[in-house]
């Protein structure tokens, strides 16, 4: 297939769409809220009303507003039918939504697309989520999928691709924020030979589900991004590592890979060029530490997922000792738009040091829960209060970002812009994008204990500070929570936090004390309130 054929195919696929599309979300969240039954009811009504010539019901990926699911959207190019969306649709209400096409009434809850939750978003990664059927490659092709790959293969050298990514200022979306272009350049500079590209979809942070949503809603974007990366660094084999907890994402990826192979977008001699690229899926088995890159590599090799000391970094010596490029799902999802629209366009979005957009999963006690994609530099207040609608009762007390590696940001700092540096300065981190809102009923010491319990059970056991330090920290926190702790325990906990942070082998241990340190920093009074009078004293005389 050459460029013209791809464009023709896109044109054909776009033509094949019917003027009125009824998008029904079929992501994990909405499926749990009976969206498959809703979809069936919609399809049946279209059949019964004999509208099939101009109306089609499409099962699409995530539309973002997961707390209000199942979501149904009427997407119309027909001037007589307005585009709108409905929330919390039940299978009973579904037929009446179809009736509105013919001027009928519906009692389904109509959503407001002008609501800040939608209006403040800027969609780059998620712009096709909720618009395409992730199980049919034609839908993605109609919206331009794989055109960036074609452009890269035929109009750019590998060096130019790396340069473009560097110029865009894209930074890793997995948490640490390492410049993507620099990572690519390191792998590309390694001598030719076997190299690998790995997509890290081991989204272990509790409270984060952006990667699941992207994989479930628009898998071809990830495959395209990985193929471009393979071309740029000289790799011919890619692996996507997905958590076993995401069965739907795995299923859709398998289907997407198969369809992309059939069309010749993956495999040997892509688009008739000399470039080969294959992608395989590796399924995790429930270990949080496998999100760490060296642990993930061990897991792909079929071993225990324990990290190893770095350097050498995976870019020099990774999977089976070959140079390996590891990026997060969201990072790969940004690649195709950057190649298509140019680095300057991307660099124009966001702040000085943090470019582009970031997806957050806004959850917890906030009114509007779901996924949001916002430009970097937006304030936490805008996200929590305007888009999220604040908390349902009481006040926002803190926002937790970065999962177990991050920290709690108190409400007094809500005007902080969201970028890598600002969040780090507050003792938290961008992380992969979980954002859990807590109200004034939440005890911060309990939250710290919750995260420490998590780290304790997820520690791989390889290095001592993390293996035993997390156990001791958890015990000390339990002692405090149960009202048995003293000022001595608190002091010991603080010093232990420093030991664990500075002496652990990998990111899990290094960041495990973060929730304690940040809650101690902003909510010391909650710890103080739990303290017992100090009974610890040095015996006056040694017998």
């Amino acid at each position, binding site marked *: 297939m050459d460029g013209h054929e791809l464009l023709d195919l896109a044109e054909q696929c776009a033509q094949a769409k019917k003027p009125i599309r009824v998008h029904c979300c079929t992501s994990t969240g909405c499926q749990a809220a009976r969206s498959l039954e809703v979809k069936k009811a919609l399809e049946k009504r279209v059949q019964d009303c004999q509208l099939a010539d101009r109306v089609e019901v499409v099962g699409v990926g995530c539309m973002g507003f*997961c*707390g209000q*699911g199942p979501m149904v959207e009427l997407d119309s190019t027909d001037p007589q039918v307005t585009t709108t969306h409905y929330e919390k649709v039940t299978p009973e209400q579904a037929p009446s939504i179809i009736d509105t096409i013919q001027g009928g009434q519906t009692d389904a809850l109509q959503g407001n697309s002008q609501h800040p939750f939608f209006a403040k978003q800027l969609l780059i990664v998620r712009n096709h989520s909720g618009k395409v059927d992730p199980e049919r490659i034609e839908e993605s092709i109609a919206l331009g999928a794989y055109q960036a790959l074609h452009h890269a293969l035929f109009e750019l050298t590998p060096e130019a691709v790396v340069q473009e990514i560097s110029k865009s200022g894209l930074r890793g979306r997995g948490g640490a924020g390492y410049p993507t272009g620099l990572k690519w350049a390191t792998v590309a500079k390694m001598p030719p030979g076997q190299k690998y590209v790995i997509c890290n979809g081991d989204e272990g942070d509790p409270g984060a589900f952006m990667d699941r949503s992207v994989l479930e809603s628009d898998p071809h974007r990830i495959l395209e991004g990985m193929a471009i990366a393979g071309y740029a660094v000289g790799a011919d084999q890619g692996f996507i590592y997905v958590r076993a*907890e995401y069965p739907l994402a795995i299923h859709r990826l398998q289907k997407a890979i198969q369809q992309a192979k059939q069309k010749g977008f993956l495999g040997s001699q892509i688009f008739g060029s000399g470039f080969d690229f294959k992608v395989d899926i*590796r399924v995790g088995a429930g270990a949080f530490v496998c999100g760490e890159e060296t642990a993930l590599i061990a897991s792909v090799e079929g071993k225990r997922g324990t990290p190893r000391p770095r350097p050498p970094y995976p870019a020099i010596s990774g999977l089976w000792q070959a140079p390996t490029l590891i990026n997060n799902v969201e990072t790969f999802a940004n690649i195709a738009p950057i190649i298509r629209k140019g680095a300057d366009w991307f660099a124009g979005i966001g702040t000085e040091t943090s470019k582009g957009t970031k997806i957050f*999963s806004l*959850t917890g006690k906030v009114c509007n829960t779901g996924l949001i994609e916002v430009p970097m530099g937006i304030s936490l207040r805008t996200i929590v209060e305007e888009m999220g609608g604040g908390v349902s009762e009481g006040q926002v007390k803190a926002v937790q970002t970065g999962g177990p590696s991050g920290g709690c940001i108190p409400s007094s700092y809500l005007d902080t812009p969201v970028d890598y540096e600002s969040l780090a300065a507050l003792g938290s981190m961008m992380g992969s994008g979980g954002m859990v809102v807590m109200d004034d009923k939440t005890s911060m010491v309990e939250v710290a204990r*919750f995260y420490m319990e998590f780290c304790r059970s997820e520690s791989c056991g390889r290095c001592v500070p993390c293996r035993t330090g997390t156990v001791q920290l958890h015990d000390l926190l339990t002692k405090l929570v149960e009202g048995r702790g003293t000022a001595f325990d608190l002091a010991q906990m603080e010093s232990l936090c420093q030991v664990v942070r500075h002496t652990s082998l990998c990111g899990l241990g290094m960041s495990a004390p973060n929730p304690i340190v940040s809650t101690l920093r902003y909510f010391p009074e909650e710890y103080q309130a739990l303290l017992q009078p100090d009974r610890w004293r040095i015996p006056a005389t040694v017998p």
Partner: protein
Amino acid sequence: MAIATKPDQDQPVSQPSGAVSANAPMSQSGSAGAAGSKASGSKAAKPAKATDSSAVDKRFKALDLVMKRQQYRQDALIEVLHRSQEIFGYLEEKTLLHVARSLQLPASHVLGVATFYHLFSLKPSGEHTCVVCLGTACYVKGSGDVLNALEKHTGIQSGATTSDGKVSLVTARCIGACGIAPAVVFDGQVAAQVTTEQAIARIDQWRGDA
């Protein structure tokens, strides 16, 4: 399907044909599959119990097929263990030894991997599984209370199975369904905004139908 060569490996991976033939003598030398086929055929019991010869054979055959499809690659171990657990319900010693022999890996390596990952279970699980998500969003919305109530109601701790073998109670770190917290997975079906009463009713329903 995947890469066939692995650079800098101490021993080259066996070629598919070699691995298949290498596997045959090994099963004679005491592999569970061969041992099982010699046992006299008793009546088929529960699938979780590997006593019946015909059932054993079938399941080990299915497992062999899985490994063959993976070309007996050692790096496919995790995938093979996933499928073994699907076939057998859990990973017992016999199965692990069979996998170790077939993939030419030390038994300690296979046991090490099987015990490292949370999703592999070395004990048989109940007929039904109830997974309570304890991710941050679910926790903040009260999934801890749901779990406590279920533990109290069933009289077992999370990770255990009720004495009648009906229900296994499990916790998950985050199933990525934070928008509908608190989420509970009943036999693979995610349920949204689950209350304590709903969860208990579901468990009672399972325990009720004998």
